[in-house]
């Protein structure tokens, strides 16, 4: 299992294709935070996001912040939420906006595998609950849009050494979550027989 450093946003699909399920990744550059209500507004209510998502790294988050001025926020505690609730947005994020990476915790179910393969995207698994560490890796909250959805706004963060992340689903059709579930289901049959 390789270790990679990747800077976002990225233009070159090859950067994504070299990542394999199980690999470790450290991220630099800029990432975009969003959650359920943000994506409901984009896709269910048809509102164009006021940030460029091409080549972007999206983080499933609703950060704890402190307001320090008009449209300006300081981090208090920034962590990551459960991704599975938002899996249905994977296809349009890839097809319409050219998003390259989605990062969250707990994984995506199998319905994310095909859109990720088709659009050259990856799912990064972060360690859920490890927000104290994550907060130190976010250098600054550079932009915020849709403040009325607080805390489920559209956030732009500048990060340094963000991770370690694990490639949970790669752009080649591999998913660690799928493999772990398949193995666990077989194991359950064996365990039930012993009860």
């Amino acid at each position, binding site marked *: 299992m390789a270790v990679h450093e990747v800077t976002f946003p990225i233009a070159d699909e090859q950067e994504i294709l070299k990542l394999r399920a199980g690999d470790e990744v450290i991220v630099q550059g800029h990432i975009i935070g969003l959650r359920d209500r943000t994506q409901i507004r984009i896709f269910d209510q048809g509102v164009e996001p006021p940030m460029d998502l091409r080549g972007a790294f999206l983080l499933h988050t609703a950060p704890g912040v402190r307001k320090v001025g008009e449209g300006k926020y300081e981090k208090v505690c920034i962590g990551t939420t459960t991704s599975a609730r938002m899996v249905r947005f994977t296809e349009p994020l890839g097809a319409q906006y050219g998003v390259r990476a989605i990062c969250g915790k*707990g994984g995506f179910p199998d319905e994310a595998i095909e859109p990720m393969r088709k659009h050259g995207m990856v799912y990064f698994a972060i360690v859920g609950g490890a*927000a104290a560490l994550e907060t130190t890796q976010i250098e600054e909250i550079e932009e915020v849009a849709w403040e009325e959805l607080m805390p489920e706004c559209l956030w732009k963060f500048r990060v340094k050494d963000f991770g370690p992340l694990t490639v949970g689903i790669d752009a080649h059709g591999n998913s660690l979550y799928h493999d772990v579930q398949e193995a666990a289901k077989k194991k359950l049959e064996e*365990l039930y027989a012993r009860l």
Partner: protein
Amino acid sequence: MITTDLQGIVEDAAAHLYVWALKDIPQDLRDALADAAERETSVPGQRVLSTILRNVQIADDESNLVCQDTGIAVYTCRVGEHFPLHPVRIYDALKAGTERATIEHPLRSNAVHTITRENTGPNTGYRLPIVHWEFIPDWDGLDVKCVPKGSGSENMSFLKMCIPADGVKGIKQFVLESIVGAGGKPCPPGIVGVGIGGSADYAMYLAKEAIARPIGTRNSDPHVAKLEEELFELLNETGIGPMGLGGDVTVLNCHIEHADTHMTLNPVAVNYQCWAARRASAHIGADGTVDYDREF
């Protein structure tokens, strides 16, 4: 006059407990996580557990929250029969303390109206915070335990009305299939709380009581304690692993609370507690003295 003062003391204690629980996880949990990191052999699993340990250290060093999800505040109160503040006022104090902690820190406010989804206040609202009550005869003290519970793990709650013919085997199967189905979503490895017996609502209440116990404590009923041990081992054979990425450590422990039930009922409730199993408690005397600890 005394009553008013005591209400203020309970409010202060609630405000302190909420923030303390969020920042400084108990020693029994730290030990369990360190032990898990030693046992785990999968590469992604080791990566997760070493990151968790690093995170706990950073929360200590920077006095930050362990996890950003400040949850819904759940309190367990053991009220002595002679404690000189009525539970109505204890509830008011817990609510006021939760609000104050949320505004003063500040903490993320998670509470919303369940239909409109509009934010209802500083982690308070209609019937929030949630308080579990127990009344103790021949005593004049009050124990308050604060268990802020995040949504990632609370969303992984499951209930099955097994039938008596399903027996203990049915209970085991349901707990196993629930935890495998939950996968990485509730932030494993955590504490699996199981409530058995009683009624549908009471079984889930008991499961919540179970996750709030100090880790690895055993039920005083030997039949139930044996089931805790068996399930703990079985769950770690599923291979779900840390954050569902595969590995040896799927759960830190399994706690069960039980109640006697109807002869034709066999309810099983599962309530998951994430690895950041936050818990803090205070003992408040009738004279207003407060001792903080984690012993219950």
